[in-house]
């Protein structure tokens, strides 16, 4: 056999290490590497999910491990879906989601658009703007609680300054009408920078030559904005909406710190209500059904949304 560079290279390549040592195939080695990850995934994600689905059909209570557990069929689901209080929690969550996302997208995109313009102190402003999202939600919740304090709170004084109202004449956290907005304001203050950063990445990904071509075609600035900027940033914006939507659907810490779900149940989002059912009332079976309903809702909405996002990206 004539020696060629190819045959020499083939001879120089050692047989698979595993086969040399134990006679394992490449596929087996691949499984050895992937196996632990799959096992962990099954153990901490899939198994709990299946177990939760199982519990959702029972009257199990985790604080009474010795009590007999009965299968109650769809009773937990029926109770949840026909409970008017839970629908009020859903409404509160929907209000929170809609307004936080809308405001964060509008303000975040505007800020990104402004920051994207080159001006002196650009970097400093970017750093200042992103500061709120670096804070812990517990800290943010606590200090906004002080800001909203009707007697000494800065927020009330600022509003009073502009409206001429008495600062202690309104209570952001204690009023049924204002409390839902108070949590929207804080979440928007904290997470708008996140949306801004994503939009900024989108804006900076648009090549300058596209705008130069538009200039040559005598497209106005407004036209450039609506036909170039918006469509090219849209996938980024949609991604930001997805992230914020998922995050805010499970919002807990910030709202608990601010209002504890009150006044009454005005700001009791589904996650707060779920926590109360599961770990304060210990209705584990009922809470499992509740969690499954929320999971299906988020999963379904997110799937539809991701499909739409992919279509936008393909355009």
């Amino acid at each position, binding site marked *: 056999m004539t020696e060629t560079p190819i045959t020499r290279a083939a001879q120089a390549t050692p047989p698979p290490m595993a086969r040399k040592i134990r006679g394992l195939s490449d596929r087996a080695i691949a499984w050895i590497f992937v196996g632990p990850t799959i096992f962990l995934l099954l153990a901490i994600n899939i198994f709990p999910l299946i177990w939760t689905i199982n519990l959702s059909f029972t*009257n199990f209570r*985790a*604080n*009474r*491990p*010795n009590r007999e557990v009965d299968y109650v069929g769809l009773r937990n689901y029926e109770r949840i879906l026909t409970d008017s*209080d839970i629908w009020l929690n859903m409404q509160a969550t929907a209000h929170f989601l809609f307004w936080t996302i809308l405001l964060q997208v509008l303000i975040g995109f505007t800020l990104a658009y402004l920051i994207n313009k080159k001006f002196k102190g650009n970097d400093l402003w970017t750093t200042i703007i992103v500061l709120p999202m670096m804070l812990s939600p517990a800290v943010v919740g606590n200090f906004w609680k002080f800001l909203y*304090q*009707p*007697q000494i709170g800065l927020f009330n004084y600022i509003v009073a300054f502009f409206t001429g109202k008495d600062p*202690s*004449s309104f*209570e952001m*956290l*204690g009023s*049924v009408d204002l409390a839902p907005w108070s949590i929207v304001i804080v979440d928007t203050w904290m997470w708008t920078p996140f949306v801004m950063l994503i939009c900024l990445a989108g804006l900076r990904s648009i090549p300058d030559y596209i705008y130069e071509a538009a200039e040559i075609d005598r497209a106005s600035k407004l036209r450039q904005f609506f036909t170039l900027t918006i469509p090219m940033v849209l996938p980024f914006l949609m991604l930001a909406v997805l992230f914020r939507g998922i995050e805010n659907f499970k919002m807990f810490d910030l709202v*608990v710190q601010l*209002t*504890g*779900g*009150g*006044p*009454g*149940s*005005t700001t009791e989002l589904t996650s707060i209500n779920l926590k*109360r059912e599961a*770990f*304060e*009332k*210990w*209705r584990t079976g009922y809470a499992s059904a509740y969690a499954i309903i929320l999971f299906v809702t988020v999963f379904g909405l997110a799937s539809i949304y991701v499909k739409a996002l992919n279509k936008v990206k393909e355009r």
Partner: protein
Amino acid sequence: MTYSKLTAVSALSLAAAGFGASAQAEDLTLCWAAWDPANALVELSKEFEAQSGHSMNFEFIPWPNFADRMLNELNSGGNLCDLLIGDSQWIGGGAENGHYVKLNDFFDAEGISMGDFADATVYAYSTWPKGSENYYALPAMGDANGWFYRKDWFERDDIKAAFKEATGRELAEPKTQKELLEIAQFFQEREIDGQTVYGAAIFTERGSEGITMGVTGALYPWGFKYENTPGSYDMEGAVNSPEAVEALEFYKEFYETATPPGYTNSYMGESLDAFKSGQVAMAMNWFAFFPGLYADPNTGGDKIDFFVNPPQNQAGSTLGGQGISVVAYSDKQDAALEYIKWFADPAVQQKWWDLGGYSAHNAVLESPTFKDSAPFAGDFLEAMGAVQDFWQEPAYAELLLAMQKRIHDYVVADQGTAKEALDKLIEDWTETFEDEGKL
């Protein structure tokens, strides 16, 4: 042979000595809420350490997290606590779920008689089922919800005259709930020494038990009952009786017309802060805090006085306080029982009261000097004579959260009527008792 025997004897002696030492000197952990009396208990327990050789560790949890933290600990079978001073409402769950050690045999063996403790405290803190002779705790800390006020303001001539002019009567400690509201409304937004002050600090907290503990301070004096017949869970007509509706409306009016602005989610800490900062003329809180309030250099001493929750149709105060239990999951139960035996001693109980704890021992309470031993001692005795407690069922947390929601929805969030709130509460409680198999 001799050598082997000697070795064996030596080994046994060493082992015995080792076991002996471990039996005599345990590291005990006592769990309770983080508040003033807990500090007094640390001080008191030094005597136990000196006498027994055991060392005491303490796990004090802030009140807002106390129930969550401790019930999770018990439900998970944790052995963090050897001794637990748990809320009175936990006794049903503690007994039925096997969290607490039943103490009857121990009491019998050690000659500890429940007859030596105030009846109301034994009933509330120790027994399950209620009123039976099954004891799961020793009354440790008697407590009830009471009131304190700015005595210096009440004694000022200008304020007294203004009150007389406004109401036609003398400014004094209220004798009824309605008088209480009238006084609070009088002080609401009044200028005193250049500062705007408010009527009273009441409980409105939503998350744990606050508003329930506050509103029952009005419900009980109006004659509120949980059931028509005790033990039957027949709540219709009792929970939503006309008296209950009136009391709930009263509490809402109190909240709306006589509390500081922004007072929508306030409990013990906020009540103390409001009073100590000179913001309110009166405040409700647990007697447990009264020694600390009296000792406060700014608003204590001559400036403060105390009164029992005023009656309306009848006397009634919301029960606080706790019993001390041995946790069934502890592996140091003998040493824990030793602590209970020591704590039940009348001399220790007297010292407990002297340090700022509220003894429930008759030897202390019935002492001729007790009433004059502190400015709030007489009120405490009076309050404990008419206390009423929340459900103590194993499902108490569920029952409590339902009440928190319904009352907060009505009083603070202004949703629906008092009757509707109480009707919904009956629905919630009925569902819970049905799940429990009690209805």
